[in-house]
């Protein structure tokens, strides 16, 4: 099955990326979180490295999926910013000619996480592109990159896939019933990875449900502080679970790519490779709590988005269908009744502020406490 099959709900982007006449040496894939930027980037990479435009089954395609293809270099950001040394190393690789394929492909998953100085190192490489090297950058939007970089890449924009598209994907990939898949896609607000987790992991679904219950139940400073502590626990559990899943998947893929079964011992000549994978995973774990809180804040935000919808739409009519948190409709309605739309907007601003504060190193629990206090103010 073609690698493009997994890039769901993005027909325009796929058309552009798979058009051989559109080929250029530097690409930028943009789209909101969960729209599948990295997914599209690696599908594109596979289509360039495969002898059959990304057949999805040949060794090239499988090696790209396992991130072990010799002509693929990539930067998946484990840290908050990409270091200048990491980019220098990639730029060096860009000047080697491909060893087995027609192209050498370099993916930078979070190109928005480069400081200006780092961007300039990349810019040099983009200005004098080696003939057979293709750069694929990913970022939430074009505005996240320096204009000098923007002007040297061809941009492909992904859109938020519809709930139905995501649900269909879940049904196809995992054989989940359409109703369950739709529910997961709705709760995840079409974030593909999140929807998949909610559909497949009962614990993840429970954690989300508890988050929403906590938010709708806060009425004072005591509640706020207790709920903040609980939210942090949930975020930690969520981050740990996700890290573990991701690490195991990655390790399994890496083993498969070198022909090792799950329980086979690692031969001596491959120890370095597995060691470096392990280190990469550890580094990623340090960032994961912050990401875990970020994910939870998306759920928190969805509650106040529902509250606003509930308030702004005539209350005489039933607008349950418009809610994200349909399963918590009673809590949402009660919250909407206790608040003015101005207060709901203030709550949304407070959530945004908490996100920014946590990103700039404010103690997470304190940022969450302040957020919940502001959100619950009458």
């Amino acid at each position: 099955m073609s690698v493009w099959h997994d890039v769901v709900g993005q027909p325009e982007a796929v058309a552009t990326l798979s058009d051989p006449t559109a080929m250029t040496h530097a690409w930028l894939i943009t789209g909101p979180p969960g729209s599948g930027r990295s997914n599209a980037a690696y599908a594109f990479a596979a289509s360039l490295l495969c002898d059959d435009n990304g057949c999805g089954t040949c060794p090239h395609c499988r090696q790209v999926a396992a991130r072990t293809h010799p002509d693929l270099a990539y930067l998946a950001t484990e840290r908050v910013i990409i270091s200048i040394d990491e980019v220098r190393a990639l730029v060096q690789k860009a000047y080697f000619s491909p060893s087995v394929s027609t192209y050498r492909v370099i993916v930078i998953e979070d190109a928005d996480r480069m400081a200006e100085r780092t961007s300039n190192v990349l810019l040099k490489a983009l200005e004098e592109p080696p003939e057979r090297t293709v750069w694929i950058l990913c970022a939430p939007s074009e505005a996240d990159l320096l204009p000098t970089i923007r002007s040297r890449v061809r941009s492909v924009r992904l859109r938020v896939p519809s709930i139905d598209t995501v649900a269909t994907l879940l049904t196809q990939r995992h054989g989940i019933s359409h109703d369950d898949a739709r529910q997961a896609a709705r709760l995840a607000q079409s974030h593909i990875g999140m929807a998949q987790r909610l559909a497949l992991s009962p614990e993840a679904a429970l954690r989300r449900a508890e988050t929403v219950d906590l938010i709708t139940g806060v009425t004072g400073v005591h509640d706020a502080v207790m709920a903040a502590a609980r939210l942090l626990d949930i975020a930690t559990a969520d981050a740990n679970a996700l890290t573990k899943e991701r690490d195991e998947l990655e390790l399994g893929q890496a083993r498969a790519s070198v022909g090792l079964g799950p329980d086979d011992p690692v031969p001596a000549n491959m120890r370095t490779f597995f060691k470096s994978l392990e280190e990469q995973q550890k580094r990623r774990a340090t960032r994961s709590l912050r990401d875990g809180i970020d994910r939870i804040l998306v759920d928190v935000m969805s509650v106040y988005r529902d509250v606003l919808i509930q308030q702004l739409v005539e209350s005489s009519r039933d607008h349950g269908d418009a809610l994200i948190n349909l399963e918590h409709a009673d809590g949402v309605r009660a919250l909407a009744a206790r608040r003015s739309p101005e207060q709901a907007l203030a709550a949304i601003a407070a959530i945004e502020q908490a996100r920014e504060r946590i990103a700039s190193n404010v103690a997470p629990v304190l940022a969450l406490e302040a957020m919940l206090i502001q959100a619950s103010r009458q």
Partner: protein
Amino acid sequence: MPWVVVMSGSAKPRRATGVPSSSSAIKVVSAFRVSPSPVVLCSGPEDFLADRAFTHLRTVLRAKDPDTMVVELDAADYVPGGLFDAVSPSLFGEYRLVRIENAEKCSDEFLEDVLAYLPHCADDVTIVIRHRSGVRGKRMLELVRSGDVPAIEVSCAELKSDKEKIDFAAEEFVRADRITTPAGIRALVNAFSSSVAELASACAQLIADTTGEITEQTVATYYGGRIEATAFAVADAAIAGNYALAMATLRHALDTGADPVPLVAAFASKLRLMAKVAGDRRSSNELASVVGGAPWQIDRARRDLSNWSERGLSNAILAVADADSGVKGASRDPVFAVEKMVTIVARFGIVAEHGHGASHR
């Protein structure tokens, strides 16, 4: 007993604040480098260093003459003739060490006697003149520093910069023949930035209680809780509504180089516990296991709550979150951010209700 007057033209003496800046022709040494001389002037506000110099002199003198007699005089409350009594040769010829306190507040009678004594000072006597600051006793100071009198000066200047304190602590360990790491010294100075006396006794404790190299880890083991102790002192005062004490403790901590981040964390932790125990009637033992914290902390939080309202506690926590954001880079003036927090907390969180909301600074 021989004495030496060292004329030092090249050494740059460090002057204590408030000490007349007339040029000095005598040797200026640090407190632990002092050697017996007929006149020793301990100038500058740091009493600890003056004490140190005196103790050191006494030890040196007693090593030479175990019968050395110590006499103490108060220059502010001086009985005329007292100095001459103290320095006059004794029947048994013991060496005499005369400690003169409060020379910066000296009486005219003292001044008269000391000016008469200095040009003819005895060589089996050391007089130690303690002068903290100011111009009182100017003629005495000028004479001591003129080089015409066998004198040395001990700089008892306040150790202001971290570097001075680091040098001080490093010297303490060198004298004890102990090896330290730069990070170890720095950690120690950070923990005891508010008082040289405390810093010195911390050094002494480490020298006595540990063996081997003194590292950051050694310091953390012994004094890890100290920085937090200062932070909690500020938080305790503010939460009790004692604005003046909270501010004074805060300023002192910040002036002596305390990091504002643990300060804010101490506020957050106390207010958080207050919010957790608010309205919960369970016993403190039971609550301790639920909300975290020791039973005494629960009791304390309950007592603290008596002055607080629900709204006030909310505002206070918001102020702490603002301050944490401020000290972590959002504010160009982190000190102001912390002061604002202290002010709001010390008012039990009663604020004009516009400052909050999701404002971005």
